[in-house]
């Protein structure tokens, strides 16, 4: 018996590679202690930490509306949702740590701008209807992306995603309900809902990433069974899902090319503005600067709390067991 470390790898690397490939081929799962190719580990660290960062930054567009939510109930719901996003970030950071990167390094990468997060969170939320659009479209697209990740070959990622997906469906439904309430309201409220959906539709579709032709890493991620479906397949699935939902809401999706294709059994939709996508990715979105500045401020201004808690913990160390009994 020993504490497992990556240092005591023994035996022939080729054999380990075969074992790894067998796990992938058998649709089995790779656990943190298993040998894995460096590129697989790096791909996962990048994808999972970016996913975690997205959840953390994703608190901001909605946090913006907590103080101005139209009722106490809506405020409580929004707070619960933002708290869930924080939780999702924490599940994902923990899962990423199993790959051998520590939490501080990931924070550092986010705060210095070295690591990316989902571009969707660089759009601003000027109206209450945006809380509806984020829930319905942004969380809807996230669910499409995330459900297949529950079967990701890297087990801790899959386990985190199972937990996250359970919680996301509340997010999408509450967003739908906000829009439905507005659509059943005054003409001004209906206009607000439509105007918001006009802004969020295309960015939500771009959440699935570049087209398959422009996404060279996708093939490898699919071969490793990190991804199960291509960007374009997921995007199509999402469009097919939201068209009937928009009809129920009485909202028009802002795409003149959107129409049912009998032959394909799918909805056709128009070309997306990829120049916008790459511009936002490069830092030129509506809110890139403010999102990162807020995150940095929160991290730096919270430093004394973390230090104080550690100092307190050290002093109380001796009483730890007694204290645990008290709250049990």
């Amino acid at each position: 018996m020993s504490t497992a470390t990556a240092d005591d790898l023994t035996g022939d690397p080729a054999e380990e590679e075969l074992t790894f490939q067998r796990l992938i081929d058998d649709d089995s799962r790779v656990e943190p202690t298993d040998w894995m190719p460096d590129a697989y580990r790096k791909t996962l660290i990048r994808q999972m930490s970016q996913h975690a960062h997205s959840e953390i930054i994703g608190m901001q567009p909605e946090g913006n509306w907590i103080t101005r939510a139209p009722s106490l109930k809506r405020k409580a719901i929004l707070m619960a949702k933002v708290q869930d996003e924080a939780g999702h970030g924490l599940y994902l950071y923990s899962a990423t740590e199993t790959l051998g990167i520590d939490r501080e390094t990931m924070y550092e990468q986010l705060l210095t701008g070295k690591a990316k997060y989902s571009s969707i969170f660089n759009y601003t939320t000027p109206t209450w209807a945006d809380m509806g659009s984020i829930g319905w479209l942004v969380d809807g697209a996230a669910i499409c992306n995330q459900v297949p990740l529950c079967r990701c070959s890297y087990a801790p990622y899959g386990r985190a995603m199972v937990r996250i997906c359970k919680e996301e469906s509340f997010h999408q439904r509450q967003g739908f309900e906000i829009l439905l309430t507005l659509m059943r309201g005054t003409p001004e409220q209906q206009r607000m809902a439509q105007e918001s959906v006009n802004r969020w539709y295309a960015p939500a579709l771009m959440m699935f990433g570049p087209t398959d032709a422009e996404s060279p890493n996708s093939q490898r991620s699919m071969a490793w069974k990190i991804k199960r479906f291509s960007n374009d397949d997921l995007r199509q699935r999402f469009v097919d899902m939201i068209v009937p939902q928009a009809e129920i809401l009485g909202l028009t999706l802002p795409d003149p090319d959107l129409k049912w294709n009998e032959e394909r059994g799918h909805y056709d939709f128009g070309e997306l503005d990829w120049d916008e996508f790459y511009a936002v990715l490069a830092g030129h979105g509506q809110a890139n600067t403010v999102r990162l500045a807020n995150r940095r401020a929160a991290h730096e201004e919270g430093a004394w709390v973390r230090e104080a808690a550690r100092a307190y913990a050290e002093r109380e160390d001796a009483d730890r067991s007694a204290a645990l009994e008290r709250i049990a």
Partner: protein
Amino acid sequence: MAARGSDADAAGREHGVTGRETWPLWEVFIRSSRGLSHVHAGSLHAPDAVMAVRNARDLYTRRGEGVSVWVVPSSAITASDVDARGAFFESAEGKEFRHATYYTASEGVPHL
């Protein structure tokens, strides 16, 4: 070298590479209802056991998923050697006679 353990294993990873304040890692186990065992739910960082229990409640039981929470410092977990797992678990292999299905002579005999 950072340990890469079970979800758990974080021995030697208490201090971040940036040298800034980093809380240690804890493993969280949740009993989802009376009569069931505590099951590993995930991990989190916290300065001490009391905060770890409270953070675990906020992080892993926001929807009534648990009636009891355990937290264990990740560094306190000792795991079987993953590279020797073949030999380590070998003694269970080839012993079908440990399973009830091995015994077929009693087929058709009631309550057996």
